[in-house]
């Protein structure tokens, strides 16, 4: 009995001790007052040196937290437990957040560097007029492949069906992405709500199974770099990381068209430091800072002024910086509403079930 009491009290006491310790450390470093800024970003999606510089410049303390999916981020912001000042949701998540009143409007008088953004990345359907969000990075969905393992050149979605790629394709596990390229390969919009078109796309995707090796998550980067498969359907950001790891590979934006995606900076309505949040956004919009950040992250920057500070070899690469003619043809995901979204997922699940 005595032993049991000791066994129960010791962990409780230790926890309290640790909690107190953490609190003291936080206070010592200046955390805990109004001079903090809570930034909620994707993992490994910022050059962390820049956070230090921002702290020096503004005297604010940044608490940096990361998430690994829009859904996880959404859930946490909806619950409102933490006072996030900055978040970086993707396009469709932004429109959801606007719908649910989770965002504060951006005060453009406070952003001196906003003009750096290329206008072709503004005023998209998920946030008309950019009332609530400022572009951070952008990209496409396409095919990354290893020319040494593929006989010929892949240029279109239909090549995945037509070329000899038996058991040699990996797909990124995303409903909209997979259903989207199924629809695009048939010449339909990836935002279609026409059930016949969707059913046709799902049926067509099922016929791709002999070529599909697996549908995986983030591991796709490691697997492709290790030559586990010849081709993969991925986001351009992942493709650039894969190509950094293994220079044999190349990336293509399929000619039937594809998705154009954005990760934008937003201010959640949980923010307790709206002023600081604007300072942070403006800091990240600075041409030189954005260039350094892009250099680190490796995704495509919407910051036109930053392009000057980047390697010519990078910015002239049509695979990652396609011209306006190309991007104009691409589609941004629209928020299809809960019911349609569920239908997409239902079809995607049905497609996955046909692997045998």
């Amino acid at each position: 009995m005595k032993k049991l009491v000791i066994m129960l009290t010791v962990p409780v006491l230790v926890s309290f001790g640790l909690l107190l310790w953490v609190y003291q450390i936080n206070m010592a470093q200046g955390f805990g007052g109004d001079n903090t800024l809570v930034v909620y970003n994707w993992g490994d999606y910022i050059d962390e040196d820049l956070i230090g510089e921002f702290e020096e410049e503004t005297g604010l303390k940044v608490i940096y937290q990361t998430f690994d999916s829009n859904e996880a981020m959404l859930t946490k912001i909806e619950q409102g437990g933490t006072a996030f000042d900055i978040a970086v949701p993707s396009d469709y998540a932004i429109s959801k957040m606007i719908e649910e009143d989770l965002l504060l409007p951006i005060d453009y008088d406070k952003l001196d560097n906003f003009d750096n953004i290329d206008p072709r990345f503004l005023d998209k359907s998920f946030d008309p007029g950019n009332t609530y969000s400022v572009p951070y990075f952008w990209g496409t969905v396409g095919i990354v492949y290893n020319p040494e393992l593929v006989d010929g050149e892949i240029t279109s979605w239909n090549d995945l069906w037509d070329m000899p790629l038996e058991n040699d394709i990996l797909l990124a596990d995303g409903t909209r992405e997979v259903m989207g390229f199924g629809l695009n390969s048939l010449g339909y919009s990836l935002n279609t709500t026409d059930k016949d078109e969707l059913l046709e796309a799902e049926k067509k995707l099922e016929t791709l199974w002999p070529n599909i090796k697996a549908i995986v998550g983030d591991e796709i980067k490691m697997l492709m770099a290790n030559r586990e498969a010849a081709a993969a359907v991925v986001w351009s950001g992942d493709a650039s990381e894969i190509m950094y790891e293994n220079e044999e590979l190349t990336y293509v934006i399929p000619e039937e068209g594809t998705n154009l995606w954005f990760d934008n900076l937003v201010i959640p309505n949980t923010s307790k430091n709206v002023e600081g949040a604007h300072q942070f956004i403006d800091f990240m919009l600075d041409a030189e800072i954005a260039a350094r950040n892009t250099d680190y992250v490796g995704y495509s920057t919407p910051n036109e002024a930053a392009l000057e500070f980047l390697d010519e070899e990078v910015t002239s690469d049509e695979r990652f910086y396609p011209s306006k003619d190309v991007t104009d043809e691409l589609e941004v995901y629209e928020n299809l509403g809960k019911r349609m979204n569920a239908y997409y997922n239902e079809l995607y699940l049905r497609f996955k079930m046909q692997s045998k």
Partner: protein
Amino acid sequence: MNQTSQTAKTVYLTTYWLWIALFVIAPLLLVVYYSFFDIEGNLSLENYQMFFTSTYLTMTLSSFWYAFLITFFSLLIGYPTAYLLTKTKHKQLWLLLIILPSWINLLLKAYAFLGIFGTYGITNQFLEAIGIGTQQILFTDFSFVFVSVYIFIPFMILPIYNAIEKLPPSLVYASRDLGASNWTTFRRVIFPLTLDGVKSGIQIVFIPALSLFMITRLIAGNRVITLGTAIEQQFLVTQNWGMGSTIAVFLILAMVLVMVITRDWGAKGAVRR
């Protein structure tokens, strides 16, 4: 004295019931409650209608099939291992070695297998060296069952080991003295008397195997879809809590079924013998 022990009993019982109510009964009720709401939050039976379509029924069947395979191979390897363990000199050490891998995070173990089973991994290098040539191992049924068995097998070995340990050696000696062969002794004495351990082992392996997810993506590359995968998808991606809960309801029913079957099976067996 009696008074204090009475109070102590009340305290313990209250804590126990509070625990059960909050962490067992309430979540179950919530799952059932949510299963009656469609994606827009209206009361409906839509989710149940959806479950009885071919997609979900096939998925249920295949979940059962893979869970069965995993349990079967765990038992096939686990029983002899547990038996041999009781015969070794340093039992505790061996047992520790078997439990040790379960201290490592599941995700790390699964990731390790990506390297081991990959096209250029150790296994294929070995197969190449002995002249068989590179095979596709990753993203197959084989790798899925193999890795799952690897993960679950300690939970099969432990209860069986305990049951065999508890078996009085005198019973085995008696059987031998009466002229029974080793095989007969095993079949008529050891196995029936350790059946309880086997049953707990089956329950501990089969039920989690039914709701496996993550490994289905990492190791099987979504070529195996279990009910667990579907629940994960409904909650995290579709955010259709109702449908996720409905699948969970059927998963719970399946688990109850397994418990009932393993219980009856043991009871009848004992009577017949």
